[in-house]
């Protein structure tokens, strides 16, 4: 190898963190444009939704178990359970279902 692994790692660290920090350096005040404000209001939920489905069904050994974990997680969150219990419920669902399905 002609390149150093340490320099690869350093380049990766610098570029990844720069992406995270640049918007916070450039945008210090409240944005007043109504469209951009609305856009940014939806971004977090949309991006998390896009990352969750169908990925949750591909992350597990059995797609069915992942799908059921999703449905149960949605019901639990709808009923007011917070992050940790919902997360544990999803894990347990997969662990138990895959005992039978895989």
């Amino acid at each position, binding site marked *: 190898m002609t390149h150093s692994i340490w320099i690869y790692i350093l380049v990766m660290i610098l570029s990844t963190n720069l992406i995270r920090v640049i918007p916070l350096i450039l945008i210090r005040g409240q944005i007043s444009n109504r469209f951009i404000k609305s856009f940014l209001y939806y971004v977090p939920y949309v991006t998390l939704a896009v990352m969750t489905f169908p990925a949750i069904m591909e*992350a597990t050994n059995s797609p069915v178990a992942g799908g059921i974990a999703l449905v149960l997680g949605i019901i639990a969150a709808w009923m007011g359970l917070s992050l940790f219990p919902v997360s544990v419920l999803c894990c347990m669902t997969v662990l138990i279902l895959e005992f039978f399905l895989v």
Partner: protein
Amino acid sequence: MSSALHCFPICDIMPFMKRENDFLKGIRDGIPIGLGYFAVAFSLGFMAKKCGLSPFQGFIGSFFTRASAGEYGVYTMVVQDAGYFAVVAMSLVTNLRYLLMSTALSQKFNPEVPLFTRILTGCCVTDEIFGISIAYPGYLNPAYTFGAFTISTPLWALGTMSGIIAGSVLPDSIVSALSVALYGMFIAIIIPPSKKDKAVGIAVAVSFLLSYVVRRPEISGMLNLNSGAITIILTILISAAAACIKPHDSEAEK
């Protein structure tokens, strides 16, 4: 517990009384994140080993980068002996969503929060930490983000290192179960606002649907897009459409 996430606007008025408390709350919410991280990082470590990284290199790389897809992408380039500029390009593409997330996060700060604190908070951004930070009621108390960072980052780095040392994965059933921990958190973040604001609920449902359709191999293959690119494009399109159809008056949520 969910009510604690959604109805404490007063915390903006007395940040110092709440600071320590919020740090602990961040640690509590960071535990499931860290557990999920450990499992994912373990398999990342397995991959990193194949690419020639030592356990220490894996630990340092993961500790300071904290980007699953981004790290995966870069480590595969180490094997290919790619140029450094290509590594920068890979980091930009796989992590472009952080640009959007930090932009959204910039609006969560009390105007008085100093630049240095904003930069530190920005460095903490991952999909999961961003998710719980944006769900913080009212202005974000950075202590909360730092708490989640403090517990989850070492687990991410240790997971990578353990994966490299072990060179093989955890029992398959455990990996499979732990891998939904992160998605469970995502669900718990997006569902309560979906219940409260119908527009968010519809945007989430549309996101699920379009994500499923576009990620079908026939379609993503035809469009020649990787998973990270699909996430960015769908996020921009759906959020822009939602902002046009149902503009949001953010005064209502503050």
